[in-house]
């Protein structure tokens, strides 16, 4: 079933993407075709199959929680578009 324009707009909002009218129309068509294609999975009976949690047979390991050297503030803030002191700067969020 093809996606509606409203569904495309809802997904774009969830994904925080600003789209033009032309992009919405194009993605609506393309995403509908892809979803149509992946729907063939419904042919398979998976009632008694567990979902894959990991492809690794061994469980993941945890490291000991010990302090170790990390990156400096200068290094971390060096790529930010706007900073003030040791903080990332953004427009006001609260009125």
């Amino acid at each position, binding site marked *: 079933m093809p996606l509606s324009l409203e569904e495309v707009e809802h997904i774009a909002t969830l994904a925080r993407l600003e789209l033009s009218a032309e992009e919405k129309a194009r993605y609506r068509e393309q995403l509908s075709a892809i979803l149509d294609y992946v729907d063939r999975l419904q042919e398979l009976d998976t009632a008694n199959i567990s979902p894959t949690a990991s492809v690794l047979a061994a469980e*993941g390991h945890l490291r000991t929680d010990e302090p170790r050297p990390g990156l400096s503030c200068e290094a971390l803030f060096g790529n*930010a*578009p706007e900073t003030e002191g040791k903080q990332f700067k*953004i427009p006001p969020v609260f009125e």
Partner: protein
Amino acid sequence: MELTEFSLMQAISALFHGETSSRELTRACLERIERREPSLHAFLHLAAASALAQAEAADRERVALRRTDPQFTDLWSTKPLLGIPIAVKDVLAVEGLPCTAGSKILEGFVPPFTATSVKCLQKAGAIVIGKTNTDEFAMGSSTENSAYGVTHNPWDESRVPGGSSGGSAAAVAARLVPAALGTDTGGSVRQPASFCGVTGLKPSYGRVSRYGLVAYGSSLDCVGALARTAEDVAILFQIMAGRDLLDATTVEAPVPKIDFGVGTDSCPSLRGLNIGVPQEYFVRGMQAEVEAGVREAIRVLEGLGAEICEISLSHTEYALPVYYIIAPAEASANLARYDGIRYGPRLEAESMWDIYYRTRGRKFGAEVERRIMLGTYALSAGYYDAYYGKAQKVRTLIQRDFEQAFEQVDAIAAPVAPTTAFPIGAHGDDPLAMYLEDVFTLPANLAGVPGLAFPVGFDGTGLPVGMQLMGKHFREDVLLRMAYAYQQVTDWHTWEPNL
């Protein structure tokens, strides 16, 4: 012989024997890059000055070592790559060099850290000469999704090099560097290796650290290597493999020593090894020359002593729909971090929310937006079970196919892609047609098993044909041994594009 014609092993050997210097080798690579790059566009960033400085330092280190250890006995084990220039796909962080992942949303980003895989090679003495082109966030099969322009296939510049590690594959094929790093989430090392006629390894999931890799599909992403020969790829793989505290998915598993039978005059034998040929990988509509090339290569492996048998991986046709739910779902979560706040460019707006919408909407390319939206939809309320949940169950069936096959065989031989390199623009704006390029490579990622691609011939227009071997978890050594044996009795891997 020109220095740039050296394979990695030949370059290592020439440096050890003092036949050339790292400075000469690095200069030769840079000069060749300068000549070829305008028509290939394999690189997004070159680090010529720092590479030459490191090469000179490597030469000095070698001179100093010769005084204390004239036979370089320690060097073989500690710094085998001393002074060797390599290229790195632009999704792996190298401190001080730009890292764009082929995206405008990371334009100008210079990571303050280095990926563990790269660091391992640097510790072994390697020099990063530049960062190679990739589809944006490694999402694509041609490099056409790079925000910085397509890479051209050195065998025919009107064709794609494959992707997403197309820049690395083209650079190795065009003899710009002896070896390069790539990454493989759904075939992104193996398919470009095949399209460009080089050897490329996707290791087992959990084998090589992904710390410092720009994340795409975290349950699938693997860091791999591309070079001219299986022996070269094995050298890089053994240096990178192992547990890393900075990547909790890496596993403490011994890296088997790869015994090529080097030093013996007799041809290496594959006696005692079984290779399965899955009927599902020889489909209608595939290029006849690809099927013929792969079947002939299988006969060569048989001639080397391997037992060949037909097998079935019955859920193969479902790998593509499973992948195009799981990978976009994981991508939609991983790419949520690009917000215009902490790094990368920001498009100004009145509110923080509008900064998010505008920066992401304008800086991500179309394929990345499609996959983010697809993944967001598949994970959204009311659709999770039907899409993501279902896909993870079918993924279990695909894994079981491999487990059952590997009770019977040591490796699986198959084509890498249904065709040889396609023309630039061939798939236009049809994402589904492009996804079908990955049909034979996705299953190994979904099952987490290793895959090795290498050249086995050429089609009628002179484009390379590749084959892949898939293996048991953590048995890359078996695949490398088979490809090495194959390359001892064939010469496809030595063919060079006529640039």
